[in-house]
């Protein structure tokens, strides 16, 4: 269940972060700020920068995390398969002993 929890948590967390990074304007509409950054009003340029570089950064994170979760699921699948093989072997040896 470790990989499953990891998958669900990261999907929810990354979705929330993506929504936040892409909707900085919503935050500013609730909490307006004054002032300039790089010559533009903050409430104009920060959503644009976050909507490009913020999202780009998150896709890099999502790429790495997604691949890691796949590996973790494969690992747990592997454990399951080896446990089944082990049980199968034990059953065989028990039946041999019985015979």
């Amino acid at each position, binding site marked *: *269940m470790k990989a499953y929890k990891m998958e669900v948590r990261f999907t929810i967390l990354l979705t929330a972060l993506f929504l936040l990074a892409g909707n900085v*304007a*919503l935050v500013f509409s609730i909490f307006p700020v004054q002032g300039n950054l790089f010559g533009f009003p903050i409430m104009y340029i920060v959503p644009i920068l976050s909507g490009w570089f913020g999202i780009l950064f998150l896709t890099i994170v999502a790429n790495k995390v997604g691949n890691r979760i796949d590996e973790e699921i494969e690992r747990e699948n592997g454990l399951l398969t080896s446990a089944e093989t082990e049980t199968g072997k034990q059953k065989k040896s028990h039946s041999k002993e019985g015979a």
Partner: protein
Amino acid sequence: MGEEAWQLSNPMLGIGAIIATFVLFYVVGYISNRKSSSVTDLYVAGSSIGPLTNGLAMASTYMSLATFLGITALILQLQVPFIMLWIQLILSIPLITIIYGTSLRRMGAFSPTHFIRERYGLSASIIAALFMILVSLMYSLGQMIGIALAFETVLGIPYMTGLIVGGLVIVGYVTLGGMAGASNNAAIQMVIIALMFIVPLGAIMKAMGGSGWFFPPLLYADMVPAMVEAMPNFFDYQFSPKWYVSLIGLTIGSLGLPHLAMRIYTASSLKSARTAMVWFAFIIGLVFSATYAMGFVGVYATETQGVAISPADADKLTLILNLVYNPEWVTALVIAGAISAGLSTLSGNLLAIGALLSQDIVSVLKPDLKVRTRVKLGYAAIFTGGIISILLAINPPAFLVVSILWAFGLAGVTNAPLIIVGVWWKEANKFGAIAASVIGGAIYIVVSPFVFPSIVLTGHSVTDGMGLSGAMLAIPISFILLIVVSYLTNRMPKLSAMLTAKEDHALIERIHGWKDVHPGRYNSTIGAAITVVFFTVIAVWAVMPWNM
């Protein structure tokens, strides 16, 4: 400068640029398509596209003609709020990839409808497919309007003639191509779009005296003081937080777009699909930022430079700026770029219609159909879809982006909840899916200004027309119906006997990569309850006064 008819004085320049672009696309399409003989090849290119090509193709399919023509028009109309609206549309591919794209790729799905059929059964998938066809048609409509406008500007011909000539040429191209041709072409188109949009923008900024012309997407701060002086409210947010919350409906809508999700299935592997997502974010961020700059420059030109643009010409803003500030051959290249942007999106839309009709409806109802007949049927559907979008564009809405964004909302109501909940919650069933799609879709259509102009939520024409208000009401209703109806019917013995719960559970586990079925996975009642409470609050908020 007064109002005038904006067109190239030498149409041959425009025609030459368009023909050269088309020859390039036909050659690439022909070479790529020689190997395309099966249905899989036609729609998902044998799942063999690499990450950079796929990332470029994703960006190209998504960007559409709206980037060249539509967005700048609405920046002229709404100023900064429209830029804020557009920013979050970058979330589409990243969210599709992390929420369900890789799962559907693992399943080997042709289309989101394919998943809906496996997950919810035949009836639900046919309803979803019909809605998706409507979504694709509305999306295509926006492209057709833009293509007609581009041909109008090149040839100085009436809109209607431009629509028929341009529309038929493009529908012919897409019908003769396939997804392989489209993917390779879309990658080339993306490069062309970026060059033909950003470089001329730099030249316009230089002609206006802007010092940041060498990197137009972000370096126009020196023009800000003059803009604020001429138009003090340009940077105002204008609307309440509720309007900005409603934008998330577009994000959810983008998750339901069939032609976009199909790009993930063309990836050669899951890792490749994720890497394509990174390329997509980089490229689309670059071009989106350049579009905001073009919109800014357009408003700047009208407010400080005396360039007069009539409301009817708003969608031509990018072309007009080029006609005013750049040599004609540059405008010819920009028009060719705009047409290639429309071409790549129309390819995606029409191929999605082809796949939906032939694979998801006809083949399901008549499974004995021969493969060759199915491929032929696909081509026929692609062509018919193109012709319908031409016919719809005869009497277009005021802004071409309106129909595109309305389509986003419809996809968000009728498809996205079925896919998202279907991938993540085992209890979701066909009764919930059908209720969500039909009732949610009907509510969205009823509150849009296109059917009953008097039944709208805000009375603000652009907000209602783009489907922002309708989506804020109908998307939550769709999620609530899907969850509540599924939960209740699963507990009614007569109805639950008609479900295939065991197979559905196995499917969900398999598409997440699991080899076994564990009852504790993807089965949270608390998660479903929280979702219902959250969306109920949003739906109630949506019907309260908007005060716009």
